[in-house]
């Protein structure tokens, strides 16, 4: 498991720091037992849940929730691959619900532009218009929620590729930290040291 090796070597590099902050080698070793499962790479595999049209529509939707702009978005994070995997393996009972939500998205696309063949075929401005019209519905909520999970979930489930989502928001899934954790407790520590 290459991920585990990477984790161990990174951890070893910071051993010096650990002694300073009081984490014992014993504790450190125990934290290591939980190096995460390797990321799941689903690139290039056939879809198990999506039809090609559904995949295109959903990818367009997810790309509007997390657009690719200054930073990578849903497309780069493999959100569509995650949803295909999740609905096939983890929550098959939600397949119908998700398919209905995509259907509602397609119907809204037609209302926004009667010429459009699908949501994916709409111009970006029209996609946004269609999504705004649906924003308060359960169908929109379902599609948005899965997009968030695919963008910010554990890479072991096939989304959040290269931790794109986590890097964006500033989250790390390490198995140990030592104080200070943030700006305000660090400032307090410094003040207390100066006083002492």
């Amino acid at each position: 498991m290459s991920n585990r090796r990477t984790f161990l070597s990174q951890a070893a590099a910071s051993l010096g720091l650990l002694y300073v902050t009081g984490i014992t080698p014993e504790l450190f070793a125990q934290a290591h037992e939980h190096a995460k499962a390797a990321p799941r790479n689903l690139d290039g595999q056939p879809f198990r849940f999506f039809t090609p049209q559904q995949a295109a529509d959903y990818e367009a939707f997810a790309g509007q929730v997390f657009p690719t702009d200054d930073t990578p978005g849903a497309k780069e994070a493999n959100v569509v691959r995650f949803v295909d995997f999740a609905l096939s393996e983890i929550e098959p009972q939600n397949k119908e619900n998700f398919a209905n939500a995509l259907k509602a998205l397609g119907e809204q696309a037609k209302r926004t532009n009667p010429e459009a063949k699908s949501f994916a075929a709409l111009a970006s401005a029209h996609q946004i218009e269609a999504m705004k019209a649906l924003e308060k519905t359960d169908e929109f909520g379902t599609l948005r929620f899965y997009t968030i999970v695919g963008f910010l979930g554990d890479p072991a489930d096939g989304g959040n590729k290269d931790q794109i989502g986590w890097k964006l928001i500033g989250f790390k899934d390490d198995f140990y930290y030592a104080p200070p954790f943030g700006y305000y407790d660090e400032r307090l520590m410094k003040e207390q040291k100066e006083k002492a």
Partner: protein
Amino acid sequence: MSAASPQRKYKLTDQVDFLIIGCGASGSVLARELSRNGFSVVALEQGPWLDRKQFSHDEYRVAAQSLLTNNPQKQPTTFRKTPNDKAKKQSAFVYGRMVGGGTVHFTANFWRFHEIDFIEASKKGTIARTGLADWPITYTDLEPYYTKAEWDLGVSGQAGVSPFDPPRSKPYPLPPMPVKSSGVIFEQAARKLGYHPFPAPMALISQSYQGRLPCAHCGFCAGFGCEMGAESSPLPTMVPQAVATGRCEIRPHSYVRKIELDSKGRAVGAVYFDESGKQSLQHAKAVIVSCNGAETPRLLLMSKSNQFPSGLANSSGLVGKYLMFNTFPITGGLFEHQLNEYKSIEVTRILQDFYELDAQKVGFYGGGGMDARFVWTPIQFAAFGISPHVPQWGSEYKQALQKYFTRTMYLTGHGTSLPLETNSITLDETVKDEWGLPAICVTYKDHPDDLANQRFLVARSMEILETAKVLDRRSFPVEEQNYGFHLLGTCRMGNDPKSSVINAERRSHDVPNLFLCDGSSLVTSGGGQPTETIQALAFRASDRITALAKKGEI
């Protein structure tokens, strides 16, 4: 089965001294104490027996597959606000469904109740149309067991710094956890306003303790199992210690459907489904039900018979009644610098200045504590936690997540719920679970005073955030609850068999060898954190039940 095996095994026909139903926060304490006291024990648990090595940080899988909790797809529930409404199928509560119970994946706030909690009705007066009543025991009766819980499980905290801390016979066994940025911000602002914040007492270990390694600050307490075994749930403590006596068998995947009686009205054991769906009857000399405030009354109601046509031990008609959820008013805000609240434990500072409010002054019954926290994992935060003042999708949403995730903290109030007879657990025969048993129907509507108390706590929280120079603050709406995290009060204890289900010894008034021990026995809700009280009651129950058994009085 867990790595903790091998363990003593009993046959179904062995009449063990005690059959414990539910091996969670209370059941596992009883299992350890009674087996240590020399009794033979079988503990049945409907959920799995997981080892810390099986836990993960995969928030989607843990939640989507209900790995640690009741599964609403297999165990549906229905909900209505009042007994006159038609119940709708919806998820109505969450509880820990595994050996160790909800304490395996709770926030780990571990507060004692205060002296007033046990004697409110006589001190403050009863309240019309509520069941506010004194407990049959006082804080003094329970104090030694609070201390025992703190020392036997391993609790980190600092005694003697809060002027509101009730009297205690011993300090905490472990020093408090390092303060996080949320704790620093909260403490400094609250002090400016004249309040008394102090280090949060937490059921986890800040240093090595009794062979366990300390917390590594990974940040995944609430909602997750602790991979380090540092959270002081029964899993690294009571459970292996019970097994080590050689007198206790813990039987996971055992879903009890009925407690059986003999012709004299004494419990003889319980019928349960094993993992393959096969039904078995485990025999025992006495039965202790520790399922939780929802499943304990359900099991009693399902155990009706000719002797008890309205449910076992229900001559009072009160089984399932006086359900209390507590309340959780939330506010939060954005700060200039990074807090990185995703690291380490959820809570490092609390205050209890509002624990015992003067109803004459504030105009409502109630009170509670408050903590500074961040319990949002990345998915939850992006889906539900970000300020409604920003767009919820698109480039601006992305930028907001980038800005808010590491700079946000919340204040959570922990408020009282008044005991109301109409708030209840009943059986809904129109909906069945995967085993064909009737679903639980929850009837719940917060008392107006519980809502007023939440609005009060929200207002105080907003003042604290303002004083802390928050950049963008918000409060979640105060609404009537339709979902329970704390399940309290459905088989209340008392001295009068007409107005309670069990007595102070935990013995049911109707069946001499049937005991109940979990959150269901709480008479009042307390100011927001019931777990330590539930476990202290379990330690006390173990002593009381042992004494009865030794005298031959069961």
